[in-house]
């Protein structure tokens, strides 16, 4: 089973990359584009007891994959 962890900069934190992308898109004439924020996605394969896997991945996301000072995260599990 593969779960996804989405990590993105907090809304209150400056995101220079997102701002640069936004400026480029608007420069290309995409008037519909507003704010852009750049984050990252981790695809993590897990196995074994599903409850334990969920607990583990939640902890991994909170303590390792995201830095809670500047980032927020969301763990997404496949629907079955």
């Amino acid at each position: 089973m593969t779960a996804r962890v989405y990590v993105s900069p907090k809304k209150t934190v400056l995101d220079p990359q997102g701002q640069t992308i936004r400026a480029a898109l608007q420069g290309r004439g995409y008037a519909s584009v507003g704010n852009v924020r750049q984050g990252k996605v981790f695809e993590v394969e897990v196995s074994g007891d599903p409850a334990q896997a969920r607990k583990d991945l939640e902890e991994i996301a909170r303590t390792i994959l995201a830095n809670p000072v500047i980032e927020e995260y969301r763990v997404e599990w496949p629907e079955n």
Partner: protein
Amino acid sequence: MWQTCSYWSSMKFGVVVFPGSNCDHDAWYATSRNLGQEAEFIWHDSSSVGDVDCVIVPGGFSYGDYLRCGAIAKFSPVMQAVKKYAADGGLVAGFCNGFQILTESGLLPGALLMNKGVKYICRPVGLATATANSPFTNQLKAGEVVTYPIAHGEGLYYADGRTLDMLEAEDRIAFRYTDNPNGSLRNIAGILSEGRNVLGMMPHPERASDPLMGCTDGLKLFQSIVAHHSASLTTTK
């Protein structure tokens, strides 16, 4: 081979070496050859920092800067030893990637974000000494401007407003940029821990410690550490 022992030396520096460190030899050279103290390297999988009097967490790209700058280094055995050393009051100084590792490890508050201009910057910058009241800045005067090089892509110091207010109220800002190159909040270039025994800063004093490099302002920071250490020996005797 890498140890020096000079008759005038009074303290020993330990320079941590991670896979991807690239300022470790600069830090060793600055503290041993330029400063005239003992210096040795501490390998990243060491579970102890040994009998050193000050630990330097050097610049570079520890573990390839993977995940986030400093995020993997914080799990290394040596960083567990450094955390314990700092908790016991030991002196720890992190420069550049070393600062990023210290924030990731929780030894210093805040985080370092990508530069505001989304560009790697490598040049000398002016720094105003924000406090002379620390083991790392006691040979400087408050307000004194020094020139150290910066060389980073992720050096924008960020912390929430409450943390920034606390750092200012507790006189824990060590250096501010005189002409902010990277968008750091409140022009912060370096900060101190609550106990004032841990310093993190993006600029490189070790690269400004040899006359051949055109500037020796960095030596004042290292001389401050020696002065602090000598004073602490006097008071404990």
